[in-house]
C-alpha cells in the first residue's frame, strides 16, 4: 500500500514536470510576450528588451524551463541592485504585474476557491444523489420527470448563462442575494455562506446533472438486479437488500466526485468571473490576460497536482467499495 502510494507520487512528480514544460512551451508558442504587457505604452524596443532581460523571458524556452526547475529547489533571483527581487524556494515563479511570488498569490486566492468548491460539492452531492435516488425509486413519477428535465437542462446550459440568470433573478429582481463579493469564513460564517449561495447554486446546478443521471441509472439497475432478488430469496430483509444496492451506486459516484472536486478546487473561471469572486480561476484568467507566464504555469501546476491527488484518492477508495478491483 505505502509502496503503491510512493510509486504514484514519484510518477506524479515527473508528470508535473512534464506539464510545466508543456505549459511554458505553449505559452511562448502562442507568441505571448510578458515584457510587452509590463513595459507600458509607449514601449520603445530598447525598453522592452531591458524589461525582457530583467524578467528573464528573453532566453530560449528550454533555458527558461531549466531556470524554473532550478527555482523550485534553490529559489530564483531577478534583476540586480535596487531592482532585485528574490523568490524563495520552492519558487513557482514571480508575477511582475502583481509584484509577488506565485506561491503567495495562490495562497491568497485559495480560501475563496476552497469555500466555493466546498459548498458546491456538498450541494451537488445532496441534490444529485437525492434527486437521482428519488427518481429511480418512483420511476416515471413527478419527481422523476422533473429531475430528468432538470438534469437535461443542467447538462446543456452553459455556466455563464445560469450564473447571469441567478444574478439577475436573485440579485437584481428579487433582491434576495448578494450578487458579488466575498466575506471570509473567519470574519463571519453567516455572511460567508450568504455571499456564496449564488455561486454554489450555479456550480452545483451544473454538476448535479451528472450525479442525477448516474445515480438514477445505477440505482435502477441495482433495484431490478437478480442478485438482490436472490438476496431476498436467501432471507435478507428489505433493509439489508437496500443497503447492498447502495453499494453499487456508490462506485461510479465516488469516481465522478473525485474528479469533480479536484476540478472545482482548481478554480471555476466562469462562476468566479460572474460573481466577481477573486479565486484561482480569476487569478488564472488575469494571468492569461496580462501575459503573466508565472501565474499561468503556477495555477496550471496547482490544478494538475490536485487532479493527480484526487485520482489517487479515488483509486485508493475504489477497492474498498468494489472488492473486484482489489483483485485485479
Amino acid at each position, binding site marked *: 500500500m505505502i509502496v503503491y502510494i510512493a510509486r504514484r507520487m514519484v510518477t506524479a512528480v515527473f508528470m508535473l514536470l512534464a506539464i510545466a514544460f508543456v505549459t511554458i512551451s505553449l505559452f511562448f508558442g502562442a507568441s505571448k510576450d510578458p515584457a510587452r504587457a509590463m513595459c507600458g505604452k509607449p514601449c520603445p524596443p530598447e525598453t522592452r528588451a531591458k524589461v525582457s532581460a530583467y524578467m528573464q523571458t528573453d532566453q530560449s524556452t528550454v533555458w527558461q524551463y531549466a531556470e524554473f526547475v532550478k527555482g523550485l529547489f534553490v529559489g530564483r533571483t531577478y534583476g540586480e541592485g535596487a531592482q532585485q527581487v528574490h523568490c524563495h524556494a520552492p519558487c513557482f515563479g514571480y508575477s511582475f504585474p502583481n509584484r509577488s511570488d506565485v506561491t503567495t498569490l495562490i495562497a491568497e486566492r485559495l480560501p475563496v476557491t476552497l469555500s466555493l468548491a466546498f459548498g458546491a460539492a456538498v450541494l451537488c452531492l445532496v441534490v444529485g444523489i437525492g434527486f437521482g435516488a428519488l427518481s429511480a425509486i418512483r420511476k416515471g413519477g413527478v419527481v422523476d420527470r422533473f429531475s430528468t428535465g432538470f438534469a437535461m437542462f443542467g447538462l446543456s446550459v452553459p455556466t455563464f448563462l445560469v450564473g447571469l440568470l441567478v444574478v439577475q433573478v436573485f440579485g437584481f429582481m428579487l433582491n434576495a442575494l448578494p450578487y458579488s463579493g466575498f466575506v471570509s469564513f473567519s470574519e463571519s460564517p453567516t455572511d460567508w455562506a450568504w455571499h456564496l449561495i449564488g455561486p454554489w447554486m450555479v456550480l452545483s446546478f451544473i454538476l448535479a446533472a451528472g450525479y442525477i443521471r448516474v445515480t438514477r441509472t445505477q440505482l435502477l439497475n441495482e433495484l431490478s438486479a*437478480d*442478485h438482490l432478488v*436472490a438476496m431476498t430469496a*436467501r*432471507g435478507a430483509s428489505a433493509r439489508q437488500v437496500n443497503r447492498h444496492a447502495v453499494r453499487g451506486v456508490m462506485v461510479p459516484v465516488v469516481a465522478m466526485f473525485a474528479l469533480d472536486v479536484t476540478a472545482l478546487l482548481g478554480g471555476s473561471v466562469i462562476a468566479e468571473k460572474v460573481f466577481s469572486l477573486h479565486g484561482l480561476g480569476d487569478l488564472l484568467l488575469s494571468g492569461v490576460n496580462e501575459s503573466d507566464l508565472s501565474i499561468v504555469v503556477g495555477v496550471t501546476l496547482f490544478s494538475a497536482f490536485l487532479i493527480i491527488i484526487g485520482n489517487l484518492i479515488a483509486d485508493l477508495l475504489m477497492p474498498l467499495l468494489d*472488492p*473486484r478491483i482489489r483483485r485485479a
Partner: protein
Amino acid sequence: MPDPVLQVEDLCVSFTSGGVTADVVRDLSVRLDGGRTLAVVGESGSGKTITGRAIMRLLPRGASARGRIVVAGREMLSADERELRRARGSDVAMVFQDSMSALSPYLDIGAHIAQAVRLHDPSVTRRAARARAVEMLDRVGIPEPANAVCRFPHEFSGGMRQRAVIAMALVNRPALLIADEPTTALDVTVQAQILALLRELQQEYGMAMLLISHDFGVVGSVADDVLVLYAGRQAEYGSLRDIFDQPAHPYTVGLRAATPRLDARLDTGGERTRLRAIPGAPTSLRDAGPGCAFAPRCGLADQVGERCVVETPLPTVRPTSESGGLHLAACHLDRLPALQEVAR
C-alpha cells in the same frame, strides 16, 4: 398420506399497470411431496417463472397473488414480512437461471453462502459460517473449496457459478427447492452434470423440487411429475410417463413435437424431418375472454367446434393405464387422435 411439502390451491397472480389488469396465472392447484420433482413446463410467458416467484412471495412490483400457498406447513400468502424472511432460504430456496446475475458482484462466493447461513442462524460465528461454505462447496463438487470461497463470481465459469448458487440455496437444507431454468444458460455437457447434481442432492436431503423449464429433454431426465402451463392455466398435469406416452392435451403434444430429438431419423424410418413449431404466438393475457386460450393455435379445435371458443375447459381426470397416478387435462376432447395427426 403425509402432508405435502408444497400445496398450491387456486392460485391467481395478476399484474396491474396503468389501470389494466392481466391475469398471468389462473386457478392453479399443485401438490408436491418431499423427495419428488415436479416439472413446470411451458412457453415464455406461460406463467411458470411467476408461479415459482409467487411461492416464495418474490413477485415484482405491481403483481398480486390470491389463493392459497402452503410451504412446509406455512401459509405463504398470509405470512408477514418476518415470517417470510424466516421461510425464504430456509424452508424454500431458489436456484436461478442466470448464475452471473444471481450472485452479487461485490461479494465473494463464500460471503453469499455464509450470509445464507447467518441470516437464519445469527448464533453461527462468521468463521463457522465460512467453514460451512467450504463444506457446501465441496459437496456440490467445486474443486479446492477452501480457495474457491474467496473467489468472486466473475472468476468462476458458468457451471461452477451454478454449482455455487446451488450450494447457496441448499446450505440450510430447504424442504422445497425451486429451480428456475437452472441449466438453460449452460452448455449441454455441463447441463447434464448440474441436473445429476440436483437429483443427487435431492435424494440425499429428501427435499421436494419444483423444476421450471421449457426443455422436455431436461424434464425427462429429472422430473417425476409434469405440469404443463399455457397462458397461466394448467393445460395438463400427470406423471412423466403419462405426459410423454399419453399426452391428453394438444398443446403438450405440440411442445413435445417441438423438442429436438437425436433419434428423430429413426422415428420416421430414416427420413429427414423438420422440427415442428406450434403455429401462432401465445395469446395476450390482457384480452383473455371465455373459451380455451389455446384454441386459436390448436389443430383440433375445428373438430370440436364452437365449444372451444365459448367454454373454458377445466382440468378433468383422464383414465391412465400405466402409472395409476393423477392425470389431468384441460381439453374438451376426451381422447386425442394419433400423435402424428395432432402435431400437423
